[in-house]
């Protein structure tokens, strides 16, 4: 009956955030959410599998902390210029994960972290091309992405 329970739940919460937490809006929101998730089902997207959802708060914690840190770092690069020996450059990162949802999450994380931008992903050789604003050691960056985000995302989604 409900092909995407998480989507339905999020739509109900969104409806109630916009219209108020009352019983009437819960019923109305539930009707809208159920019909919306049926129409989503007719598009037949890949159903994301959350294997270890209890790791999600840990991921959000790490990402929030990194976003604060890189906000300050990029602000200082813009205001004071790059320190000696630092450059900006392209970075090709080979990824092991193939799950679409996990890749989408990684794209969101890397884009919303200032200082790194996701340019393109090649599903043929599973490499993502990034542009990094402030880089000292390229291997260290690749290692950071793989150990900090990719490992956790693979545990959650694959």
């Amino acid at each position, binding site marked *: 009956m409900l092909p995407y329970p998480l989507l339905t739940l999020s739509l109900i919460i*969104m409806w109630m*955030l*916009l219209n108020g937490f009352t019983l009437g809006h819960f019923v109305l929101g539930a009707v809208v959410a159920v019909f919306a998730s049926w129409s989503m089902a007719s598009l037949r997207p890949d159903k994301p599998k959350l294997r270890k959802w209890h790791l999600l708060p840990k991921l959000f914690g790490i990402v929030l902390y990194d*976003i*604060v840190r890189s*906000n300050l770092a*990029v*602000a200082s*690069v*813009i*205001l004071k210029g790059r320190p000696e020996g630092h450059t*900006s*450059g*392209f*970075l*090709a990162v080979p990824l092991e994960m193939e799950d679409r949802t996990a890749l989408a999450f990684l*794209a*969101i994380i890397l*884009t*919303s*972290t*200032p*200082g*790194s*931008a*996701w*340019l*393109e992903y*090649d599903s*043929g*050789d599973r*490499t993502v*091309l990034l*542009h990094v*604003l402030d880089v000292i050691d*390229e291997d260290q960056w690749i290692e950071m992405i793989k150990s900090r985000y990719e490992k956790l995302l693979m545990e959650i989604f694959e």
Partner: protein
Amino acid sequence: MMHSAADIPLWAAVVVAFFLLVGASLTLIGAIGFLRLPTFYERIHAPTLGTSWGIGGIMLASMIFFSIASSRPVLHEILIGIFVTVTTPVTFMLLARAALHRDRAERNGNVPEKQGSSEEAEPDSVPSA
């Protein structure tokens, strides 16, 4: 019941002002960077300041202010934050790939070749970063 801005307690005013200033300053710095950084690929980093903690700070300030001023939790701003975060990568990738395509076609600068493409590079060659 809705209070006016002058009626909210001092501690709340301080917290709201803090988040509002942090968000606004980061967005401003992002805009300055957008103007000043030399290359396209460096410039696309600057607005992400506004779309991460820029929007985050202003969102938090708005949530705190309206929750206290109207004496009930007002949380719907979080949706703005979620949708901005989720949709930014789409436009970013579009812009970045358009720029990559143009630079590769015109052979501008030191843009890496297309990864694993059969026409331009050997399939097993490692793209230089």
